């Protein structure tokens, strides 16, 4: 194994890691806001990928242009998921944690079923998009263009999210609600509205990720499952609720995955990610950047 191939796979690991961060950040945002883990997060990614695919097939909209549309659609979907299901789950008097886990799990299963029903279990892919299959050479390292653009989108999204949380009124309301939802109600902010917008925003972010992923990944009803576990690990690695932690966690996961793939048979590459997660939480039970 030459130094070049090592740098090569670390570089693609880094790009993939930034995308993992983008997939996971919505999860982290929602958790930070209201201590709820959305177990349908992978399925949010799945419908975003299908939405991108159908925009491409029926309207010939390139995934890159479709990304904002998909993000907007997912925003509505996420807000509705909160208003129709999660809102009632957090009100549960008994077994609140359990109810949250299983009501969002139920949603995930329904979404998979609906996708199978309407789209069939067939594997689909976006053929001949602008970026698909292209590579670019940077200082002798070949980088796939879709992943490169995905990584740039992820960085831009994180930057925008940072500004949004720190500089806008809604961002401040979000921050305040996450700190003390009860006190926020006293100053006249509707907690439910903030939560719904938070869910919308979290879903929009994974929608963005889905649109990029659709360029280079097969689309099928179960596609979310494999990414969901990585997203949970990413979020937990960074520390639940920490948006910055999700970003850092994503990069770590991407690099660890690339390293494991070099050392072990490819079918075992996820083992490295899981092992690193366990190692981190055994030493720091609240993840790398988690507080509380």
């Amino acid at each position: 194994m030459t130094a070049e191939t090592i740098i090569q796979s670390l570089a693609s690991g880094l790009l993939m890691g930034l995308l993992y961060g983008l997939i996971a950040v919505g999860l982290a945002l929602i958790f930070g806001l209201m201590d709820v883990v959305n177990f349908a997060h992978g399925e949010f990614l799945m419908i975003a990928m299908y939405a991108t695919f159908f925009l491409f097939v029926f309207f010939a909209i390139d995934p890159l242009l479709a990304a904002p549309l998909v993000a907007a659609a997912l925003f509505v979907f996420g807000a509705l998921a909160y208003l129709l299901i999660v809102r009632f789950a957090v009100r549960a008097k008994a077994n609140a944690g359990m109810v949250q886990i299983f009501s969002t799990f139920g949603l995930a299963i329904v979404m998979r079923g609906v996708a199978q029903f309407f789209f069939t279990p067939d594997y689909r892919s976006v053929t001949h998009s602008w970026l698909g299959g292209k590579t670019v050479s940077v200082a002798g390292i070949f980088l796939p263009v879709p992943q490169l653009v995905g990584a740039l989108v992820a960085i831009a999204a994180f930057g925008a999210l940072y500004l949004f949380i720190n500089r806008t009124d809604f961002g401040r309301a979000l921050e305040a609600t996450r700190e003390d939802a009860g006190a926020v109600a006293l100053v006249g902010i509707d907690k439910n509205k903030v939560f719904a917008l938070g869910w919308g925003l979290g879903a929009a972010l994974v929608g963005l990720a889905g649109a990029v992923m659709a360029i280079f990944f097969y689309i099928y009803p179960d596609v979310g499952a494999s990414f969901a576990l990585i997203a949970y690990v990413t979020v937990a690695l960074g520390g639940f609720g920490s948006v910055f932690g999700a970003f850092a966690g994503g990069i770590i996961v991407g690099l660890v995955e690339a390293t494991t793939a070099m050392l072990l048979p490819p079918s075992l590459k996820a083992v490295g990610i899981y092992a690193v997660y366990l190692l981190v939480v055994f030493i720091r039970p609240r993840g790398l950047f988690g507080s509380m």
Partner: protein
Amino acid sequence: MDTNFARSRRRDLIVAFCLAATAAVVPLFVKDSYVQNIMVLTLMWGALSQSWNILSGYCGQISLGHALYFGIGAYTTTLLFTKFGVLPWFGMLGGGVISAVIAMALGYPCFRLRGHYFVIATIVIAEIGLLLFHNWDWAGAAMGIEIPVRGDSWLKFQFPRSKLPYFYFALALACVAWFVTWWLEDSKWGYWWRAVKDNPDAAESLGVVVFNSKMGAAAVSAFLVAVGGSFYAQFVSYIDPESIMGFHISLLMALPAVLGGIGTLWGPMLGAVILIPLTELTRSYAGGSGRGVDLIVYGGLIIAISLARPQGLVGLFSLGRKEAAR
């Protein structure tokens, strides 16, 4: 101990005995093998969920990785039998003991984790187990192992022509899991577990050895689940990593308890009696087309029940004592 409580515990025991006795005669009248198959699965998942409930319900350590113990049970029995000719009954015990030991070894670092960090650790560990078995050539890797079946034999616990022996074993397993729960519920451990679940810090300060009681719950729970896994391997006589250790196994173990009533004596069995036949029926009537209607029904049911009755269905029947035990 107040007499009311003692009386209701005695009543539970009598009701359980009557139910088990009734269940035992049902297959003498219902001879359809499809229905018998569903009954075996219902009892098996009921028993598994009851075992899962000990760690996750009573002790409050939510595990979504119990597929690991199910798989270890199934693989231990199958490997010992196919490679060394060891009878499944020994494999069953061996798998149970191995699982209990592994549960404690994993519990040692994991029980320091709380909430979602713990849940994700359990998922991730089971997933590592799955990937390792996937790549373990001696154990059949992704292809799995077929158990050679050569006719009815109690010694080898295989019955290609009849489901009845499996039914009675599953019934016995369900009874054992129920009885262990019943017995533990009123033991020192049972009270410790509920204290640990409600408030670990307060429990610790009152002298409950929190860590050890979690370890105890994990060992009992893993042992019983592994025995269930061994049974399943004998029942289907073919195992492969995905169908034995996949995440859906962990989920199927948790769901009956969640729907019936987590941390209750009757919840897991009640949940299994409702959920498993429903799953099998929707699968055969709506799932054959591969169009996902069964998933929609199933998921919808999970959402509806968890939102409408967060404490589980068991409260609808006055069988469960619910809060009385606290």
